[in-house]
């Protein structure tokens, strides 16, 4: 479906992409990882037809540069940094829906599911929204239309745990007929979302590996933590994960999305000295967070 053939890109004679070749099939979910300057963003921009380059990039045999409207009509994109648009939210939604031949109400619906009521902020300039609101709106615009490819750069970075869970559910609804490319600096951020990992370094693909899919995107885990003593720092962090204090800051309980497990455990590992017991058990995925 997506093919990169010997794609190279120079910036002021410095190679940023060096003969990258990749084949990505429909339904694959790729984690595009690598450190800063590895070439992830450049590769994504080549895929979106935004950069000129050597070699060939095609989506369904079409070039995203020369056949922009046809190709980009199939691609939803969520950037890492929200653009500093001054236009009102309503205008952005209407513009995106009009050029993508979608219905603004579909975008409103997705945003509502993510916890953002677009009707309340229609007149507000996009750049005046909070980081989380911007991210939710950009996700809603990308998912509020028919796409075959989703390109997302750290898409859940600014989302709270509840919105992250809903976001994973939204992705789970599209697993069969959508190819996803999720860019991140860290594999643990996206590991549970993907079934293939592509690592880049110095403009080259240095790792291309499949990942066993043991957890569904919509899975939820019941989680209990017991601490050796109450601690303000971990309490503050657990509250952001929407955990409930069951006994004087010692016993904590909450729900963690399947794809967020690794991230959650990474957070908990920072307080390992305080931890006396941890228990995680998978529950019915149809249960939604309250």
């Amino acid at each position, binding site marked *: 479906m997506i093919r990169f053939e010997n794609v190279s890109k120079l910036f002021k004679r410095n190679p940023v992409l060096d003969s990258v070749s990749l084949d990505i099939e429909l339904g694959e979910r790729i984690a595009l990882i690598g450190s800063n300057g590895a070439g992830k963003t450049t590769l994504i921009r080549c895929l*979106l037809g935004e950069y000129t380059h050597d070699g060939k990039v095609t989506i369904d045999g079409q070039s995203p540069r020369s056949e922009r409207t046809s*190709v*980009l009509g199939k691609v939803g994109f969520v*950037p890492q940094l929200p653009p500093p*648009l*001054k*236009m009102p939210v309503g205008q952005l939604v209407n513009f995106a829906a*009009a050029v993508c031949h979608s219905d603004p109400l579909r975008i409103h619906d997705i945003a509502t599911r993510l916890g953002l009521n677009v009707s309340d902020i229609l007149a507000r300039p996009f750049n005046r929204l909070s980081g989380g609101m911007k991210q939710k709106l950009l996700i809603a615009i990308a998912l509020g239309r028919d796409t075959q490819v989703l390109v997302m750069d750290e898409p859940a970075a600014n989302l709270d745990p509840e919105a992250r869970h809903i976001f994973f559910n939204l992705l789970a609804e599209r697993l069969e007929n959508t190819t996803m490319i999720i860019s991140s600096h860290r594999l643990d951020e996206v590991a549970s979302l993907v079934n293939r990992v592509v690592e880049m370094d110095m403009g080259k693909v240095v790792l291309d590996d499949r990942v066993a899919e043991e957890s569904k995107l919509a899975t939820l885990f019941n989680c209990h933590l017991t601490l050796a003593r109450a601690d303000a720092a971990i309490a503050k962090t657990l509250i952001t994960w929407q955990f409930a204090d069951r006994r004087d800051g010692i016993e904590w309980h909450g729900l963690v999305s399947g794809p967020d497990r690794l991230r959650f455990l990474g957070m908990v590992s920072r307080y390992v000295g305080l931890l006396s017991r941890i228990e995680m058990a998978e529950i019915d995925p149809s249960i939604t967070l309250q």
Partner: protein
Amino acid sequence: MNTLFLTAKLDIVESLRARWFLIYSLVFGGIVALLFAFGLTESRVLGFIGLSRLLVTYIQLTMAILPVFVLITTVRSVAGDREAGVFEYLLSLPVSLSAWFWGKIIGRYVTIFMPVFVAMLGSVIWSLIQGVEVPWGMFFYYTALLAAMAWCFLGIGMLISTLARSTDVAQGAAFMVWLTMLLFLDLILLGIMIQGHVAPEVAVGIALANPLQVFRTAALAMFDPQLIVLGPSAYVILDLFGAAGYQIYALIYPVLIGSLCAVAGYLTFRRSDLP
């Protein structure tokens, strides 16, 4: 076609919200208001009185202000959006590059031309209400001249904007272009001719190639058809074009310059990295 107008609308709304547009509108609206307030319609210069006098002064002031305003604000268009990271997102949407570029030009043209025109139209409406005679021929020609001038500098601005990789460079280049045109106005050319013994044909040729001078001469020709104030160069111009011919040249040439620059800007934009 739909995306072209959607992009134009997007640019118009962005411009209407921008501070530069507010200042720009206030400047031209303010000029007309001040000209009325100072009773310019009552003064007589070179036999001109009433609205003709006001329009003559207005077009002279506009010619001094509009080019630099248009250049400085337009060059921010492509270079500014690219620098701010707007392109990475908006050009990931299925919009053709031609619809995007020309849509931005149309939107920007509307926002730069309308305040200048509305200010002039306002003075005409006020004169009609006051029962002052309106010189319609002058009004329509000056409108066409302003439209051509706006298009010319918009095209030049868009070309600079696509060539420059940063807003600072774009603004610096725009200012240099404006300054160069300013330096080659007739008075300075005259000085060069005297100092450097340049052939008169060369000096007149430069004057005819400089859009700023073309507008200035055309505006002068409306109230001084013999171009007496221009001195000897007027003979060459009138010999070459005739009075009516020059008025037509002053409209077609800048439009051509603006269009060529806009097309060159589009071709550069289409072939370059977008973000």
